[in-house]
């Protein structure tokens, strides 16, 4: 591996680790569920790019299959959470309407 590629991989590692750290901080501190879901999505895509960078730095192409599988699967959790929050919001909205109608 030549020097420029090694430098680029190191810079990519630094950026990805900083991105991991900031996403985890937002996920632990996050006041609402939307913050946590977005942080989970960010962690998924940072993991994909981390595995791709590790494929470049190690030179074994077998790791790229893991990145492809993660990219195929990473959106499922976000979709499930969005469906959950949509149903829960509709329920609370209906309850508020019922209470206002009663009073």
């Amino acid at each position, binding site marked *: 591996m030549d020097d420029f590629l090694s430098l680029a991989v190191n810079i990519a590692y630094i950026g990805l680790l900083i991105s991991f750290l900031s996403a*985890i901080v937002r996920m632990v501190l996050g006041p609402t569920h939307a913050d946590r879901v977005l942080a989970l999505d960010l962690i998924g895509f940072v993991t994909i790019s981390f595995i791709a960078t590790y494929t470049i730095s190690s030179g074994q192409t*077998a790791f790229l299959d893991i990145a492809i599988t993660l990219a195929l699967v990473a959106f499922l959790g976000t979709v499930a959470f969005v469906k959950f929050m949509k149903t829960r919001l509709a329920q609370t909205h209906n309850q508020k309407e019922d209470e206002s109608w009663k009073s």
Partner: protein
Amino acid sequence: MHWPIDMIVLTFVIFCAIAAITVRDLLATAILFGAYSFMMCLLWAVMGAVDVAFTEASVGAGVSTVFFVAAVFRTSRRTKD
């Protein structure tokens, strides 16, 4: 220059696990467990276990998060009666 990637990611994993058992919200616990699963997948890949990372990516990160969210959604905090 060699990076201690596995040590740094393992620190994140432990942080995520402690947060998942500390936070007082079931949905947040499910989200933190999803992040834990993603990082464990990365850790298996860095350790060189390709097939374990494959299984963790498809089952742990994809399906089990959806199952946890569905289980939280279908149960309630208090009993009906």
